[in-house]
């Protein structure tokens, strides 16, 4: 594959106060504003019904926003139909054309643009090689496995060298192993092509592994836009924290210059204002580790989950349950029922509001 064939300038995206409502009920998108940089791997993350797919469809031109504006590459997309946008989509169900074979599926977009047959053949072959389906070109779509279909859908979009590639949960139909493999492959491909990718998923781990930045959506609004680390370690609110998989939330009773009073006791340190303290499970230390940090208290192990590289402990601290994740470095584990010393520092915590 000659890389230069795809070296087209990537485009930035600007979404400004976009609102979109369907027939009845709450708006699918509520005054959404965000900027995606050129060449960025940008992920829209959220639970089903949060509006992420609607936003993707607005970018593709398959939905018109009720109000607000969308710019792609500095150009307003108002009234521009999908077939006149240099934007292509990898659909969740792949949406391959069953009456066309793999080669004809990949070449469809070029055919519609009136590209000469010889060039279509050449570019289809090249992109098929890049996406690992070079030997499947004459197959019928019905003969392909799920992973192969996913690659065809990707190749069918990429061959057009769009300014922006939109991906609507493209990996959700695949089994876990293949999924992890394709996550890496897709990430590498994006870096290599330097293309702007907007990726939709409801899987926070997938989002963190792949993205440069993540926008977390909640009920049609943007809850937070940040790097994976920012979204995970400093979630903007309880919704984002819960969605990123956190479960250690401790209500804050009072805050002063030197620390906070909480449901698990007094914690010294520099904490920001908020209603809840978030303790990341990997930042909770037990026993000998705990003695290196200032805030310590006792807890009882109520459950233990061995995960290979780490062991998870569910700890009862009065009314509050905490989850601690400890790296397995050869130290003896703790038994269920054992009382352990727990240590918490202001690093590895965040304060949240509802």
């Amino acid at each position: 594959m000659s890389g230069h064939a795809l070296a087209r300038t990537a485009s930035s995206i600007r979404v400004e106060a976009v609102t979109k409502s369907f027939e009845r009920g709450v708006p699918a998108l509520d005054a959404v504003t965000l900027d995606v940089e050129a060449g960025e791997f940008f992920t829209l993350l959220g639970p089903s019904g949060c509006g992420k797919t609607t936003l993707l469809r607005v970018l593709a031109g398959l939905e018109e926003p009720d109000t607000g504006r969308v710019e792609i590459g500095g150009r307003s997309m108002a009234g521009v139909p999908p077939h006149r946008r240099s934007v292509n989509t990898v659909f969740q169900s792949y949406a391959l054309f069953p009456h066309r074979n793999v080669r004809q599926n990949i070449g469809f977009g070029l055919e519609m643009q009136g590209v000469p047959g010889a060039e279509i053949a050449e570019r289809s072959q090249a992109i098929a090689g890049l996406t690992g389906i070079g030997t499947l070109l004459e197959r019928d779509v019905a003969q392909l496995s799920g992973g192969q279909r996913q690659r065809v859908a990707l190749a069918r979009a990429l061959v057009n060298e769009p300014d922006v590639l939109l991906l609507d949960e493209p990996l959700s139909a695949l089994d876990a192993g293949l999924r992890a493999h394709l996550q890496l492959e897709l990430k590498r491909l994006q870096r290599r092509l330097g293309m702007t990718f907007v990726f939709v998923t409801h899987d926070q781990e997938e989002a963190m592994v792949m993205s440069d930045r993540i926008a977390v959506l909640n009920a049609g609004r943007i809850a937070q836009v940040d790097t994976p680390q920012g979204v995970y370690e400093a979630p903007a609110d309880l919704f984002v924290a819960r969605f990123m998989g956190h479960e250690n939330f401790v209500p804050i009773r009072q805050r002063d210059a030197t620390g906070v009073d909480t449901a698990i006791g007094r914690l010294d340190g520099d904490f920001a204002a908020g209603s809840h303290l978030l303790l990341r499970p990997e930042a909770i230390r037990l026993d000998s580790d705990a003695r290196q940090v200032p805030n310590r208290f006792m807890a009882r192990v109520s459950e233990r989950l061995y995960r290979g590289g780490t062991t998870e402990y569910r700890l009862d601290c009065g009314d509050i349950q905490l989850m601690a994740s400890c790296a397995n470095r050869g130290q003896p584990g703790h038994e269920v029922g054992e009382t352990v010393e727990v240590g918490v520092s202001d690093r590895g915590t965040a304060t949240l509001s509802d």
Partner: protein
Amino acid sequence: MLFTVAPGALFILVFLVLPSVYLVGMAFLSSGPYGLPTLPLSLQSFRELAGFGFLGWSPGNLYTLIRSVWQTLLATALVILLAYPAAYYISTRPARWRPLMLLAIVVPSWTNQVIRSVGWMNIFAPGTPVSDLAALLGLTAPQMGLFPSQFAVIVGLVYNFLPFMVLPLYAAFERLDTEQVEAARDLFASPVAVFRHAVFPQTLPGLMAGIVLVAIPAFGMYVVTELLGGGKATMIGNLVARQFAQASNWPLGAAGAMIMIAVTLIGLKVLRDLGRRLSGDREVVL
């Protein structure tokens, strides 16, 4: 095994195989004094059908056959043109309206074909507003009316068979994979190209089923042509019926029926090949 297959096989034997054998046999017999088939075996009926009579050769029957094929094709094409948008439109309405709209299309076909054809006679007869309008526009001679005519026959055929095209097309539209349509739009297909590449292939099985349901009975149509054509647009169905009912020449009627079956089979073969070509060399499963 025997007990499960036997009833069906018996049914087919009694109601399909035996009558067909009887019909084929009859076609190769001679016509007796009262038109009933008698020995000896002969090809007389086929000679007559081909136009060889007492007065030498005449092209009348050949014209009837060609007219039958032509009127069937024309009516089917018009039915397709009307049914595609109708089926699409119904499939995009709110779910609670769809059954009602389908019912509105189907209900007229519950009325007897004769009565509906008489209805069209009354609409197209000389002196009706429709006929006057046609005369005013110079489409017909004054006082001629639109009935009886080939035009009236085509209208009658289209009207009769429209539901049989709308229903299978509607079924196809209802389970249309809209993501394929969106994928085509996303991949630079213009609205026409979207229909050609994403909608048409998906509705092709429905279309083929509709063509079978419309063209075969239209080709054998008797009532509509008899009533609305006034002898100007007779089809092979009328020719066959006349041999059994009026002319009393059963062997000739049987031979005509065989020609109908042969033409229908050829038509099905052409349709199947056409379907394969339209769907990229794949078999279209109805």
